[in-house]
């Protein structure tokens, strides 16, 4: 019965609109169609993280069996995070999979994702490259995540050094995003990144 899904989303939507998180611009929820099957979520990057100040957009699809099955959520905004695919935006979060509970709502999902940005789980990664960097070169990871937040999520922290490296590769004729992914993957080592791009 698709009806219960739509009815619940209506109620959740009203709840989210009224919530204090929305009031504080921490989360945001928008309808994409009248059938309550597709929504657009937005979360603010949590403070004291490389994502601070960034705004991350999410694609939310409500299955017919909601709330008995979790919503399908992924990042639209590109993000550098061990549990989120830097390529597809797919999220590795237990509550969106087997730990889903019917009492959870879109609000709790968005808040959980926010929490995920604060506390990554590198041992259960979605993006192995990011997870490795997170574990092995924490400072490089933070710098990269900040840079990505600045570039893709309107973040405030400009990483001039990294930008210069991207420009350098762009100068060599590589596409900007590909260059950034290569550099991020190769811990901003231009030589390796170039090799990576060429191979």
């Amino acid at each position, binding site marked *: 019965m698709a009806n*219960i899904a739509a*009815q619940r989303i209506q109620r959740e939507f009203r709840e989210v609109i009224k919530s204090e998180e929305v009031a504080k611009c921490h989360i945001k929820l928008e309808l994409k169609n009248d059938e309550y099957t597709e929504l657009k979520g937005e979360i603010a990057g949590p403070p004291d993280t490389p994502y601070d100040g960034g705004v991350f957009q999410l694609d939310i699809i409500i299955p017919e069996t909601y*709330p008995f099955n979790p919503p399908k959520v992924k990042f639209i905004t590109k993000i550098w995070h061990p549990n989120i695919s830097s390529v597809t935006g797919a999220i590795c979060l237990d509550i969106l999979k087997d730990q889903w509970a019917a009492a959870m709502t879109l609000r709790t999902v968005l808040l959980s994702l926010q929490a995920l940005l604060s506390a990554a789980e590198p041992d259960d990664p979605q993006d192995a490259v990011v997870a490795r960097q997170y574990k092995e070169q924490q400072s490089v990871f933070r710098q990269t995540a900040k840079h990505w937040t600045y570039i893709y999520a309107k973040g405030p922290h400009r990483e001039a050094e990294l930008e210069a490296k991207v420009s350098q590769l762009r100068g060599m004729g590589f596409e900007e995003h590909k260059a950034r992914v290569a550099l991020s993957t190769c811990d901003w080592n231009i030589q390796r990144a170039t090799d990576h791009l060429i191979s």
Partner: protein
Amino acid sequence: MATETGESFSSYENSLDNTNDLEGYDNEFIPPDHCYECPICMMCLREPYQTDCGHRFCRNCIKRWLRTNAPGRKCPACNDLLTSEQIYPDNFAKREIYSLEAKCRYSKSGCEVQDSLKSLLNHERHCEFRPRKCPNCGQIVVCKDMDEHLSKLCPKLTVECQLCRHHVQLSNLDNHRNLCAIGNNSCPDCGESLDSKNSADKLHTCPKEMSKCRFNNFGCKYKGLQTEMRSHMEQYQREHLAMLADSVEQLMAKYPKPSPDVAAMGAQLQNFFSASTSAECEPQGHAMAAAVDFEEDLKKPKLKRAASLATQPEKSFVESESMRYGSGEYAVEQSHDVVLQLRNQVASQQQHIIELQSKVNYLESTVQDARSDLQNVKLDFKRRLCHGSFVWRLKNYKKLREEARLGAPNCVLHSPGFYTSFNGYQFCIRLNLNGVENAQGTHLSLFIHLMQSENDDILAWPFTGKVTLTICDQHQVASKRTSISETLVAKPGLAAFQRPTTFRNHKGFGYMEFAPISYLESEDRFFIKDDVLLIKAEVRSTSVS
């Protein structure tokens, strides 16, 4: 806005089918209640169940959760392990919920009822604001508006187009009006719409109508708008005159003088005129009025002839025609009387015919009776005056034989009774066409039986005498006839010849094997001719009476 419409839509759908009320109560509670909200459907708990871990859900919600999420499931609220054995109906919560004050779920449709949930549930089943699906168009209509919807608003309703009287679906009416033959009755030239009355009376004079020049008959080919006709007339005066002159010349050539028949007609008319003035023409006023019309009619088709005729004869022609018309009307009236008379006559004659018919029917039946009486008397005569020599004509032999062969119940045939003398013994012949006992199927059996008669009291008993039974050969040539004949003597000791105690003495006397059937039926014999078998019995009484 999207929220609003979506909401009302889904709540309609939901309430349409009450059996699908799986989730909680959607009512607006006063004051708003969150204490009894199901965490799954986020509505007020319907049939609340509680878990071991102390969370409440609607019965259907928690059951579905446990069903959907197979083994090792957890509480949707706290993620504690939960199995279907760990949930229980929470009747305390149920009672509490029932006592909560709420608005009718159809409040958005206009219902203002507010009551405890328990009473509301009862009310909602009959709430006049509950949505219903129109059986015709499928639209969702509030219950109380359904009658109006069905009788006036339903797009599937058939209505009559007021213009063409065709039946059209309401939803198509606007479309139809654009296409409706009568609705679209506007002047093809100027576009002015004509109502049906106007168009019928041709009252509409269209300024854009293209009309012909009035000299069209004389050869002017001009066609134009009414407004331009005037200038055409002025401009082409000379040409029109020439055309007119040509036409007149042509006519004169065709009719140099009044032709003899026209002259004769004139004379005839004169007579009519004088006759009609002398005659008392009763409907004179009518006639004159009719005459005027007649004159008008006359002028048109006879225009050409009129031009060549002298004025006087024409005038008298018209006048006398009108007189004829007048007398005609009189004649019509007269003949109307005649028709009435005739009609009455016919009616009375018809009545007469009916009476005669019934008389004829009566006579016919009387004749029929008399005829059958006569038949009986004839037979009686034959039976009584045959002097013991009776010929029995058995018609339809083939059919009777077939019936006998198949063992029909009446396979025993009896002849009419006959008398040895006018006041003698009565006998009858008994015939078994398929034989009896040993002769069955092979021979024809023939017997004679004594019958009761009014003479029995004056006759001597037992009967004595001779009986001859014959099956007659009907060969055309008497000498070639080989009739089968047997004579027997009535012995006084035989039961067959005692005075009969029943209508027919049940004992008879005769032959089981009177004649082989195959012999009788053989084609070179004439025992059966024209499907008739002739049996002759001769009884000679020697009794002294």
